[in-house]
């Protein structure tokens, strides 16, 4: 029954744009369905439908448009009737609905990507088909689950796309915008379905939905290509270079995916983390060390070690997802913002296949949105003339790149716009009392200011950005992921934001150091070098601030024991190690009694609010089972900055801040 109805709907779509044979086919289908119909209301609706179609076929319909509308409505009613057995309350099958939500999102994302591709190159007819298929599939699934609004919207959009794929209307401008709007509306509806699953009630329908449906319907009546310059239909001009065949979608060997609940995955990965630690506790235990030397036990232990590592790698890889969906989202955003601002841009992405921990991906999305908006709003010049005068192409260029760099992920956003205004930022810095008048600090140091809260040099607050909220939030969120953010810029040439993120949140590399009887862990990502300082490298200023001389730089030095109130801090032994850490252009040396070694660590919350505990970001189970504390380098540096500045003054302001290269 359902199949037949689907066939009927398809025939309707064909007939709507087609000719008499298609209409006749539709008429036959109606009879076909009528044979199976048992429900009285259905029989009635179908009979009515048949009569209307007969009238249309005979050309005897006084109001063909009105009749078409009624045919369509009747079809929707029919589909509704076919789904709900009268009187039965709709039952929510969590698996079915959950699967639908996931799949619908995938389809919508694919559709979005194709639309963007299509917009960039309208000759890619294949892309329209993909979008069409996406909507069609969702429509089918939605009708299975009796999701009438979704179904109706998908249906209308499908009609529009169908015209486009037949070349009846150009897939550009208004039509593209409509489909984009439809994608957005569908996404919202899918979210509603999710709400329905969790709360059992469907959110109130969006009043804008009807308006959208009307607009899409109106879109079906868009000007026919004959009324237009033939720009949008691909290459009808024989003189034009023959169209490059749309690159066939890369055929990736299909792997069977298994959907796993994210919580379970997290628990698995956490457990593997525990296993890694437990394993190292066993293999490093003093009791076993004597027994293990050379014997079978030793071999078994190293086998255990190997398997554990492999398991760990496997576990990590489970959480890794490519950045592609994120980049696509950004492409969409860039498109919308550039339209809104009227700044044409070319948006380029590279490294979409790079994989990153899903949790990080989720957290970094907002940060990227901020940076991208910023780049479009303030980076790219307002008018094409300004760009042309500067010898740049009229369309701005925005590049989003992902790559691996030294065990972490690098995400870069580069624009070829105005670049940061050194003078303006410096002036603002002086105004805020960060720099002295007449001071000429290095570029890097000045550019760092844009990450301070409420620090905006934009003269005009636009709808999108420039309110002084944004980059400080970006920085905080990146640092919360134990990542780093840097900015590089050349006046008139453009700006690059560089986000360096850990591969995974579950495990980080840490350096275990000792101060007195206490052990701390410094994330390896924050460490720039380890130094065993000689007496001639240490300088004291006024008995207060200590400095470490590193080549020709002076870095403020802090004794960990003192900084963290370690009670039983040992007397200086001369074998102390200075751990040089860096964050956001600031550097400091932390003097520890000893470096105990590297360890991969699973970060744990301490189960307490660490607000007000500057310098500690979490805990970790050390190899002997005790808890070690992870030093929060940005927090520590913030705490030490005032001290460092005092020290810097004493030595004549010669603290050199490294310019990131």
């Amino acid at each position: 029954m359902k199949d037949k109805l689907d066939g009927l709907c398809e025939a309707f779509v064909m007939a709507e744009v087609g000719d008499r044979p298609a209409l006749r086919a539709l008429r036959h289908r109606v009879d076909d369905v009528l044979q199976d119909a048992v429900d009285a209301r259905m029989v009635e609706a179908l009979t009515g439908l048949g009569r209307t179609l007969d009238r249309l076929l005979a050309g005897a319909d006084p109001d063909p448009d009105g009749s078409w509308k009624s045919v369509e409505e009747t079809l929707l009613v029919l589909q509704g009737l076919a789904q709900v057995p009268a009187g039965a309350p709709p039952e929510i099958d969590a698996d079915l609905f959950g699967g639908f939500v996931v799949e619908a999102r995938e389809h919508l994302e694919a559709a979005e990507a194709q639309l963007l591709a299509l917009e960039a190159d309208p000759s890619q007819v294949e892309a329209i088909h993909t979008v069409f298929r996406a909507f069609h599939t969702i429509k089918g699934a939605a009708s299975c689950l009796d999701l009438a609004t979704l179904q109706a919207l998908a249906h209308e959009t499908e009609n529009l796309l169908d015209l486009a794929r037949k070349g009846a209307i150009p897939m550009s401008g208004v039509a593209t915008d409509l489909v984009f709007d439809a994608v957005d509306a569908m996404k919202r509806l899918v979210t509603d379905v999710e709400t329905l699953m969790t709360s059992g009630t469907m959110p109130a329908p969006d009043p804008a939905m009807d308006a959208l449906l009307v607009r899409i319907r109106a879109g079906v009546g868009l000007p026919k290509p004959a009324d237009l310059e033939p720009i949008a239909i691909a290459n009808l001009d024989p003189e034009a270079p023959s169209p490059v065949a749309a690159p066939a979608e890369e055929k990736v060997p299909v792997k069977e995916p298994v959907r796993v609940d994210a919580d379970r995955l997290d628990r698995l990965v956490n457990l593997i983390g525990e296993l890694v630690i437990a394993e190292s506790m066993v293999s490093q235990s003093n009791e076993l060390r004597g027994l293990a030397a050379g014997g079978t036990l030793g071999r078994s232990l190293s086998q255990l070690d190997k398997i554990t590592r492999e398991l760990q790698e496997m576990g990590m890889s489970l959480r890794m997802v490519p950045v592609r969906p994120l980049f696509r989202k950004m492409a969409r955003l860039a498109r919308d913002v550039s339209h809104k601002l009227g700044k044409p841009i070319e948006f380029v992405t590279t490294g979409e296949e790079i994989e990153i921990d899903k949790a990080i991906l989720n957290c970094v999305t907002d940060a990227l949105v901020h940076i991208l908006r910023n780049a479009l709003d303030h980076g790219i010049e307002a008018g094409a003339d300004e760009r042309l005068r500067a010898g740049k192409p009229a369309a701005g260029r925005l590049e989003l790149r992902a790559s691996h760099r030294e065990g972490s992920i690098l995400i870069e956003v580069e624009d070829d716009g105005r670049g940061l205004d050194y003078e303006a930022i410096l002036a603002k810095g002086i105004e805020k009392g960060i720099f002295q008048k007449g001071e000429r600090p290095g570029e890097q140091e000045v550019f760092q200011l844009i990450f301070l809260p409420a620090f905006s040099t934009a003269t005009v607050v636009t709808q999108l950005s420039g309110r002084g909220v944004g980059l400080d939030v970006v920085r905080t969120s990146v640092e919360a992921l134990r990542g780093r953010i840097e900015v590089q810029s050349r006046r008139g040439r453009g700006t690059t934001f560089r986000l360096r993120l850990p591969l995974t949140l579950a495990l980080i590399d840490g350096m275990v150091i000792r101060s007195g009887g206490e052990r701390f862990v410094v994330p390896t990502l924050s460490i720039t070098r380890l130094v065993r300082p000689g007496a001639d490298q240490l300088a004291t200023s006024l008995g207060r601030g200590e400095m470490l001389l590193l080549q020709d730089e002076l870095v403020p030095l802090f004794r960990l024991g003192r900084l963290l109130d370690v009670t039983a801090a040992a007397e200086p032994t001369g074998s102390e190690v200075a751990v040089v850490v860096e964050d956001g252009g600031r550097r400091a040396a932390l003097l520890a009694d000893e470096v105990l070694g590297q360890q991969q660590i699973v970060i744990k919350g301490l189960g307490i609010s660490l607000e007000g505990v500057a310098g500690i970001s979490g805990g970790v189970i050390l190899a002997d089972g005790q808890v070690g504390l992870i030093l929060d380098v940005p927090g520590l540096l913030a705490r030490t900055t005032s001290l460092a500045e005092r020290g810097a003054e004493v030595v004549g302001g010669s603290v050199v801040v490294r310019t990131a290269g």
Partner: protein
Amino acid sequence: MSDTNARPRDLSQGAAPGKYLTFGLGEEVYGLEILKVQEIIGLMQVTRVPGLPAVIRGVVNLRGKVIPVVDLRRKFSMESKADTERTCIVVVRVRRDGQDHTVGLIVDDVREVLAIAENQLEAVPRFSKDVETGFLLGMAKIAQRVVMLLDVDQILSSTELWSMPASVGGPLPLEQES
């Protein structure tokens, strides 16, 4: 104490008859509702967390989970005393802001599980103003001894454990149970 005006407590909202785990702290005996107690562990190496108030002795590793431990002697402003063989950690679960938290309480020694009947319960008497009674659910008289029944949620919510609302806590909700 945020609810100084709400006292004296209504007994019906205070201690309920049921099973209580009793433990000693100095000369006094205290009781905890058994349902709040997750387990009892021997005292282990506690890692100090710099910058926290002395009431929190630090954090320990409870089978791979890091939990804070509160020194009850310090919490009740009792004289500190060196740990002994019998010193142990009572691990309790408290609910706060819709989340379960596991916290360890360091006590001098654990006694027994007592079934306390309705007729053994008494309301908390009013002491002078400077005796903090907000975290007492009630008292029980058992065999000529008084057992003070603790409201563990009150103890821990009045503790410096959560100096700030959870929403502005750590940057990442790591390892929190839901």
